[in-house]
């Protein structure tokens, strides 16, 4: 029987942990702004009108949506690096000794890994949706839900790979 409370306690730990990587968060935010404000607009100017029409009216919209997915992916994958860090410091042994079942632990970390990324990228996502001009509430809801499921899946995938691949260098190469 999985306890939701325990899953949340595990997830909460990962969310709080993420907020401590201030340098990473700042750098990612700068990367996002530069991609949208600089490269997005520059690239947009490089495409002819017919190409722009083929990708939904504006190449910028296409580019901005892609940037959000990339942001989500790269920040979610970070949970795998946490696993390596924890293995180095023996924290995994500690986590395996606390009164939480293995299922709760894995589920909690997948939810935490996905949710923290989702919360971090959330404001950027809203900005992009505003820039794109998405206004249908139902579409917004479906988009957000899909994106959360995407982060949850990527977090689980990242954890599985981190546990399976013993070398963090190999993990780094594989996850890009």
């Amino acid at each position, binding site marked *: 029987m999985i306890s939701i409370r*325990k899953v949340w*306690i*595990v997830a909460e*730990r990962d969310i*709080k*942990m993420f907020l*401590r*990587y201030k340098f990473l968060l700042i750098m990612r935010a700068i990367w996002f702004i530069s991609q949208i404000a600089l490269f997005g607009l520059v690239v947009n100017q490089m495409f002819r009108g017919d190409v722009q029409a083929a990708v939904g009216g504006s190449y910028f919209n296409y580019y901005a949506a892609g940037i959000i997915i990339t942001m989500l992916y790269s920040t979610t994958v970070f949970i795998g690096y946490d696993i390596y*860090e*924890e293995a180095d*410091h*023996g*924290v995994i*042994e*500690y986590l*395996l*000794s*606390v*009164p*939480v*079942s*293995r299922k709760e632990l894995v589920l909690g970390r997948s939810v935490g890994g996905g949710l923290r990324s989702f919360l971090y990228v959330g404001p950027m996502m809203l900005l992009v949706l505003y820039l794109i001009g998405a206004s249908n509430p139902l579409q917004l809801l479906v988009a957000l839900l899909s994106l959360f499921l995407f982060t949850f899946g990527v977090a689980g995938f990242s954890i599985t790979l981190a546990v399976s691949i013993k070398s963090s260098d190999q993990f780094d190469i594989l996850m890009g």
Partner: protein
Amino acid sequence: MAPIIRMVNLTKKFGDFTAVDHLNLEVEEGEILGILGPNGAGKTTTLLMLTTVIRPTEGTAYIGPYDVTKEPDKARTLVGMAFQEPKLLWVDSPWDILNWHAKVCGLPLDERAKRVRWALEELELWNDRYKSVHAFSGGMRKRVEIAKILIQRPKIAIVDEPTAQIDVVGKYRIWNMLRDLRDEGSTILLATNELYEADVLSDRVAIMHKGKLLVCDEPKKLKDSIPGGDVVEITLEKDAPEKMLNELREIPRIVNVLAVKPNYLKIYLNQAEEVLPKITEFFVKMRVQVRSIRMSEPSLDDVFAHYTGLTIEEAQRE
């Protein structure tokens, strides 16, 4: 009363290496059981199996009524462990680590706040509670690790070398805290390679070497049990050859002679006051000058030496 921990043929192998070899040991509720042995004796591996971090290769252990191989989740609800190496991430602060630990162990909010504050103050970490453990010394990290079980107050507290890297004053404080924990109802399993710690803190001591349990009893009974109730330590001016040691062993009432160093002997004997003159006479006859001579009570090191032929220090080097 049924034992609260029961190890039945508990075995752990890593490839061809047997870290723990068919360990059979019971721990009574409310006692402090010290597991004493040199590094590599299998102490930590045993503790990791009891906390279900690693699975036994063979045999099992019962934590209360729960079999660690069949009901690990339930077994973990009774156990709390302070690891030998503090398990902390560099970005963490003691405040976050201990609050999360208290939360995951199911302590209600008000109790959590009280216990975390108490442990941080007692272990002199209160002023540094928001600092990253990255900036902490080894002793401070160790105190954070110990604080976890002091806050949790588990039914079974497992502590692995709790005072390693901690100063003398801190050691006494932690020993008292562990005694208090026992008095409040916890059973404590203590792994250590410090003889004095095992002696003063444990109700019973289990001595392990090379994955095997050699003996388990109260410290006093263990010390009384070795033949040769007195110990004479002699430092010679020059090394003692094996032939000389054998001749020394021939002296009546000498039970054993152990060459800790080539010129440092430990002689186990009965009625030392009568034998001592004969020993000095022996060295005079052998024309070996004695640098120092000292009589002492047997220690747990002597018990270890009795069973293995090595002192703990020698076994550590092996």
